[in-house]
């Protein structure tokens, strides 16, 4: 999709924005906030900037190859993918649409407004500071809507989620952690 030596950046961006997260396929990388930028590389190619969610996230390699493949298929031959570590990814970057999608799929979206940022410089939201009290998140069951829920573990099947259960309908569900 190169016309007269100029790259159609908005077309490239539109393609990049369709790429989904390998672990949370209901979300695009754009919804997740992992896709930071798509711009001309200056030498006729496309420069895509992404950011990892967690240091150990095993899906990052997959994301890179998905972006590369989708853009190649759309006719962008020269694609470079840059990883930007700073500022670190934050769950507050998940779009409204992304939050809705998570909830529709039974995953409670992060509550970035209530998360404390105490002691964590340069972050809005982020992990709840050490209080040794039960977490102050208000978590309602994505299935029955009850607010009678309890956390079973701050860790779950992927690095980005916690595990909860509903005390009313008794179903377990996942919670996307603030980070």
């Amino acid at each position, binding site marked *: 999709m190169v016309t007269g030596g100029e790259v159609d950046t908005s077309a490239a961006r539109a393609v990049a924005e369709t790429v989904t997260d390998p672990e949370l396929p209901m979300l695009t990388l754009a919804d997740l906030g992992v896709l930071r930028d798509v711009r001309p590389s200056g030498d006729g190619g496309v420069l895509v900037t992404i950011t990892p969610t967690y*240091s150990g996230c095993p899906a990052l*390699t997959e994301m890179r190859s998905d972006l590369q493949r989708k853009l190649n298929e759309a006719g962008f031959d020269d694609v470079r993918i840059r*990883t930007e570590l700073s500022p670190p990814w934050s769950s507050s970057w998940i779009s409204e649409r992304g939050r809705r999608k998570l909830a529709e799929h039974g995953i409670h979206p992060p509550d970035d407004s209530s998360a404390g940022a105490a002691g964590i410089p340069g972050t809005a939201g982020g*992990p709840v500071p050490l209080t*040794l009290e039960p977490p102050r998140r208000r978590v309602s069951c994505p299935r029955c809507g009850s607010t009678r829920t309890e956390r079973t573990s701050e*860790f779950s099947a992927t690095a980005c989620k916690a595990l909860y259960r509903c005390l009313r309908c008794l179903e377990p569900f996942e919670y996307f952690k603030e980070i």
Partner: protein
Amino acid sequence: MSFDNAYEAIAEAHPEGDARWAFGTGFEDPLSGVDTTVPDGIDRADLASYCLMLGDDALVLAQRLTEWVTRAHELEDEVALANIALDLLGQARMLLARAGTVDGSGRDEDALAHFRPEDEFRNVRLVELPRGDFGRTVAALLVFSTWRLALLNRLTGSADPVLAAVAAKAVKEVAYHRDYAARWAVRLGDGTEYSAERLHAGFADVLPFAEELFTPHAVEHRLERDGVAVDPAALRREFDEVLDQVCARAAATRPEVTPVGTLAGRAGRDGIHTEHFGYLLAEMQSLARSDPEATW
């Protein structure tokens, strides 16, 4: 996609690359696509050593914590410990990759993790201690994550932009690790007589190795002057405050311990390790060493 048997599924060809069928195949440089220029005025050999220190701490503890997989008392805690190990492994990968490029040796993360002998590892000895029972693991994780979080928080201002970025990401992860360990310390300490006893015994085993966390190495001294590293001695106050807070809630007392000795002033940061470390490395490195050409 359907197959008559599982072997066909495994052997299926993937024109778009092996990364498609399972996470973990086709690892690439964890700093791929990151600007890894070293700013002028930073000593490259010292920076590489420092990255190894912080990277080895994370790598070795990740290996120890992974031992809990299939052995933990509850599925939720198994998942928690595995996730904590995965975060630490991710931090280790970036730090080791940084060390290998900065020192000019060109060694990648695998070469550094699997083909260095014991005396070239720069981790503190605390992380290599046997996992013991759950009480000891909680004590070790509380001590380590409290110290590392204090360190990482300060490292976000490092003059090395890669270290600063790795730290800024890791701060958020380790905050969750500390929270996990602290909550379990309260639950054990304030639980039954037996659980309190196990936590206490865990602290007694682990705390003698805590002194080393606050003893600056010559490399840390030099890099601290240049604004790259953090002086570990400066972390002690925050460390004590957090541990006191947790112990108060856990109705636990920190046992009085005598710090374990050093070898004429040398310890983990100089490659002097405990007798437990060789076994850990043997297990961690055996596969890569038995088939050095293998890729995963």
